[in-house]
């Protein structure tokens, strides 16, 4: 990111000059880059520098500078989960540029996203590092101006900086009571039922969905009385093709897996750079889990009253939970297959 650096104190100019420089420098830099972009287009006939992306990145600089003052005095708002909406929205343009320019994310079915009220987004999970979460969050925000609150693996809770960053940008650990609390507050929650089993898949098993947990996500949606929106993501598997997983080293470092990709750890930190695959994200039609649809398959289902629900008399049938979890998994898998067929080439397009 071209964050303009200050001139290294040239013979102590007066404070106002410094402040003016500091204020004007980003704009000047942007103007210069813009002119360069136009010249390059005239020369090569192609957009080598995307002005729109440039503008997005510049906005991050200005918004963070504005926020810094608020953070210094402590006058900022976070919600009870530690989510800072202003901070998240200030950083969002970076991820938007990555989504548009790097992975060329193609969206379909955004009309299925609810504009208000709770909803549970259920997605497949892949790609060693959870970039898919960030991409879905950007897509949701740009479509309906809402923040999807992703549930993250417990493992992240103990990571310095990362745990702080994830929580501040709206994520929380995957506890059922917390999820219920978010959904009842009318939030959109994003969940990856495959968990780390999904991101830790070897390359040979790409796009094959793992077990969807124990169907806990269906139960929580039922108790909150919110629809489930299945999401299928194509492209995340190719960001870090995982060739091998060194179990011993992972255990030693306390990590869920230690991946070997074509670039990691061979190229060092450069290996953390994801590959620029072509992404397709599809939001499927919402599945209403509050109304019992097919009563025929409830064989031997034990009845548990959903005791603390708002729809207090609704019953949660384990059979129905598993059945719905299966339906959603099938929907996502079918969506992936369809999108894979639609995507002509993995890295181009």
């Amino acid at each position, binding site marked *: 990111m071209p964050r303009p650096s200050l001139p290294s104190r040239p013979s102590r100019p007066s404070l106002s000059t410094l402040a003016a420089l500091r204020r004007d420098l980003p704009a000047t830099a942007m103007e210069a880059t813009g002119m360069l972009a136009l010249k390059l287009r005239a020369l090569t006939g192609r957009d080598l520098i995307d002005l729109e992306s440039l503008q997005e990145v510049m906005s991050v600089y200005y918004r963070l500078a504005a926020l810094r003052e608020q953070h210094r005095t402590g006058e900022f708002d976070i919600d009870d989960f530690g989510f800072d909406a202003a901070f998240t929205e200030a950083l969002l343009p970076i991820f938007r540029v990555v989504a548009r320019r790097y992975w060329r994310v193609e969206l379909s079915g955004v009309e299925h996203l609810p504009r208000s009220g709770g909803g549970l987004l259920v997605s497949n999970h892949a790609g060693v590092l959870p970039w898919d979460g960030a991409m879905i969050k950007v897509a949701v925000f740009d479509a309906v101006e809402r923040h999807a609150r992703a549930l993250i693996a417990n493992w992240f809770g103990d990571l310095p900086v990362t*745990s702080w960053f994830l929580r501040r940008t709206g994520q929380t650990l995957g506890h059922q*009571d917390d999820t219920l609390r978010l959904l009842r507050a009318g939030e959109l929650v994003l969940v990856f039922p495959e968990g780390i089993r999904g991101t830790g898949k070897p390359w040979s098993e790409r796009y094959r969905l793992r077990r969807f947990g124990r169907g806990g996500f269906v139960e929580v949606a039922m108790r909150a009385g919110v629809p489930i929106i299945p999401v299928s993501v194509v492209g995340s598997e190719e960001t870090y093709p995982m060739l091998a997983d060194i179990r011993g080293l992972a255990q030693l470092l306390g990590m869920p897996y230690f991946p070997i990709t074509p670039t990691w750890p061979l190229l060092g930190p450069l290996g953390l750079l994801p590959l620029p695959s072509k992404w397709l994200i599809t939001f499927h039609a919402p599945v209403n889990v509050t109304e019992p649809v097919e009563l025929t398959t409830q064989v031997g289902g034990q009845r548990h009253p959903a005791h603390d629900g708002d729809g207090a008399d609704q019953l949660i049938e384990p059979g129905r939970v598993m059945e719905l979890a299966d339906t959603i998994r099938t929907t996502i898998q079918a969506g992936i297959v369809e999108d894979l067929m639609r995507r002509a080439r993995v890295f181009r397009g």
Partner: protein
Amino acid sequence: MSQGRRILVTGVSRFWGAELARRLEADPDVEQIVAIDSEGPGRPLARTDYVRADIRHSLVGKLVRGLGIDTVVHAGLIVDPQQAGARTVHETNVIGTMNLLAACSGPDSPVRRVVVKSSTAVYGSEPDDPSFWTEEMSRRSPARNGFTRDLDEVESYVREFDDRHPGIAVTTLRFGNVLGEVHDSPFARLFDLPAIPTVFGFDPRVQFLDEVDAVAALHHAARGQYQGTYNVAGPGVVVLSQAIALLGKINAPVIPFVGGAVAMRMLDRLGLVDFPAEFVRLLQYGRVVDTSRLHKELGFVPTRSTIETVLEYGRRRRVRGLVDDATPYRYEHELEDFLRSRGRRQPDHDRAAADPSAARSAPRRRRRATPRVTVPAAPASGVRRRGAARGPERDRGPHP
């Protein structure tokens, strides 16, 4: 007068017991307040009858019966392990609670209400904790230190007592971090440092409860007939960095995220800081409790939110030391003494055990207006008290 409440308060030498006793003194429904502790009251008290006794002593049971105590508020649990030695903390918390509950048991017990002041420390502080602790949740990992283990044990005694005595309303209040002018707590000590050490890479969510609200919550629970366990914390949450910024302090992320507890213990040994080692975990992972049960079932809403508590603490800190709060009471207590010597309040024979007039002639420290009856902690011999018609010590055998 005869319908008035008779309340026994423990832990009166510390913040909680003393402040509660003061609050109860202003409550016209409370007929008698008996404070019990092995040390003198932490604040000057007016109409509270103070009995110097260790709550580990079997005298408590006789006191309860002799005075016809209907409500016992156990405010004596030490929840800041730095307040006393590890052994004292264990003895006071575990053995003291055990004995106190035993004193309230039995078919002849006049006790109808027991309020126990516990701590949200029972939930621990781990990286994979839920974002909100509700009362029925419990820690998934074993206790990391003796103090938390003791708290578990105390709460299990209280639960057992509750199960065995359906006629007694047992209320457990789990208090979060209490912050205020008077109360000494790890967070108060932390916020008094010029630069505040935090754990690098972590910014935990925490809650604060104003000390006035904390005592009000205890009072509220003692007045009503509530059953069960309640989390008590100020509404809303704050991240530690925000609290530090609001106090106008410097955030110094100097505690390593691995081995922070060891570092803290070393600094504590050197006398640089005064925090329990497990406090680091709170600074790293934080702890937030759900207080909806407190609001809905107990009907208690703290007047100050978490953020307001922090701001108020900042305001109070700036004038600390300028206003001497001890001075006004000295005069009041002399007036009180004068009024008492005029025999305004004639104690009846049954309550003679804690007769205020008995203490009038006793030597008294200057600032303590509270009448004292001295009972040695252990063993039970040579109990000197006067005017006890149904003296509890009369039928006591040698104490084991």
